[in-house]
């Protein structure tokens, strides 16, 4: 009887094993089917282009962008010896330096004052988040007039105090700063919205218990709000940083990279090389540099973030 049980057992075991395997295969196929559309589109429009960009960066190309002559690292050597590209790198970093802290500080300030429970606060929140709904093109048009040398509100305002008119977009000293100011304004809406969401998700008990302990406004801000907000801040900094490196629209509309290439950020430089000068090889080399910068920054952020960010 024992033997019979064993043999029955092994038959059943085989059946079970087979069924298990079948189910696993079925699950795998099912999972892949659900992911297939995304994977296909990622492959065509993200992974392939990335690889292709790296590939193109080793070639000279014809006017339609097909690779013709393999030149190895020549494209990279060329861009790094080109003052134009080096300038655009410097410009990009300066631009990031101007816009990221500016955006975060202003948005955080707005989020903190808009997080109070006051009558009519909803209206203020709507206004603060409104720039998210304003496209780069429209925002550029608005700011173009604000920056207008004679009619623009900024210079009109300055003239009240007898300050001489500034060539916001035409003076090489001011142009990058002007583009940065308009960019900060464009960024505020989204950043504000996310930070406000972060603030609202902080447990109100924390504040109540601090109130009982008699903590002051700024003490609470420093000891509760900022630490509890750190994951949100971390996210917002990452997004703003990456966006800053990818800036294109406002430069194209406001200054076209000028004056004297003062505002030619890296994406604009890529655009000009590829689609105006048809230098796809060097443009691709620049794109690779952009990719490396962003990859490096993201990884760095993750590494730093892991240590410093206070997750609940």
């Amino acid at each position, binding site marked *: 009887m024992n033997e019979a049980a064993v043999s029955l057992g092994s038959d059943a075991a085989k059946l079970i094993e087979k069924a298990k395997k079948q189910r696993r295969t079925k699950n*795998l196929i099912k999972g892949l089917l659900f992911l297939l559309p995304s994977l296909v589109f990622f492959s065509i429009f993200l992974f392939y282009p990335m690889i292709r960009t790296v590939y193109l960066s080793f070639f000279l190309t014809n006017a339609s962008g097909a690779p013709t002559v393999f030149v190895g690292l020549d494209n990279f050597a060329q861009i790094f010896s080109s003052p134009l590209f080096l300038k655009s790198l410097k410009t990009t970093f300066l631009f990031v330096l101007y816009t990221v802290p500016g955006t975060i500080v202003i948005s955080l*300030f707005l989020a903190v004052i808009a997080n109070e429970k006051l009558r009519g606060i909803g209206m203020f929140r709507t206004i603060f988040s409104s720039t998210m709904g304003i496209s780069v093109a429209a925002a550029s048009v608005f700011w173009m007039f604000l920056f207008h040398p004679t009619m623009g509100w900024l210079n009109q305002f300055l003239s009240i105090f007898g300050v001489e008119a500034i060539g916001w977009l035409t003076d090489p000293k001011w142009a990058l700063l002007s583009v940065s100011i308009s960019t900060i304004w464009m960024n505020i809406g989204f950043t504000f919205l996310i930070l406000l969401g972060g603030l609202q998700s902080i447990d109100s008990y924390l504040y109540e218990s601090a109130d009982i302990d008699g903590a002051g406004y700024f003490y609470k801000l420093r000891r509760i709000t900022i630490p509890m907000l750190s994951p949100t801040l971390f996210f917002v900094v990452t997004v703003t940083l990456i966006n800053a490196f990818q800036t294109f629209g406002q430069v194209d509309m406001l200054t076209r990279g000028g004056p004297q290439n003062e505002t030619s950020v890296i994406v604009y430089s890529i655009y000009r090389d*590829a689609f105006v000068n048809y230098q796809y090889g060097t443009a691709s080399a620049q794109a690779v540099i952009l990719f490396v910068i962003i990859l490096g920054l993201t990884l760095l952020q993750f590494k730093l973030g892991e240590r410093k960010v206070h997750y609940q």
Partner: protein
Amino acid sequence: MTMPFYKKVVLYLLLSVSAFFIFAPAIMALLMSFMPGEQILTGTIIPKSFTLEHYRQAFERFPLLSYLTNSLLVSLLIMAGQLLLSSLAAYAFVFLEFKGRDALFFLFIATMMIPFEASIIPNFQTIRDLNFLNTYTGLSLPFFAMAFGTFLLRQNFKQIPKELKEASEIAGMGDLKFYLTVVLPVAKTSLVTLGVYGFLSAWNMYLWPLLATTDDSVRTVQIGLKQLQSQEQLNEWGVIMAGGIIVVLPTLILLFLGQKKLQKGLTEGALK
């Protein structure tokens, strides 16, 4: 707890001044779009009289209406594609268990590190070689797959009790049917959030439509605005501003309607 009076005053003061600065450019554009040309040229701030002339001219001299339709169609197409692809992928990550799922999820995270701008040259060539330049397809196809949307929906799907899936398994319901009849209706709110976000981003896109359109038939309203700005004479600021207002009106309305949901949804998607 009531706030001390002085604190209220200070807060309202800060809020009002900030609101003025944030809103000033948009208000300025709105005022200018209704302001007769001569007043703009003399640097008037508060208009002395109103006119619809600029709007009439904007529509007359530019195919604004067709630009608007193009933008609407492209944005809706992108939105629909993103919703479909993101929700399918998020479903797989939350409700299906299979080998390699975590590796694939990591792959999705990795896509966030590839900036679209850095891969724009081959993308342009792909769309060109497929003869998709100057088509709605070419304008929208590259944006269908979306890691952020997948994360946002995944976050939301995870809040659906696992027991719902198990109950449906016991009842003998397949995955596709469960996805369609349970997950999508239950996660309606987050789908709306993602839809609004996708629509906003698509409507406001600049670089890609600039590259992928060369004629008016499919040109989006953002590129139309660029044209308007670069072709107009300096004294036509009123027309440009009227164009700007027309461009931002749909998105601003959408934003005002969906602000609360958007804020909640985006915060959830952003943080694990």
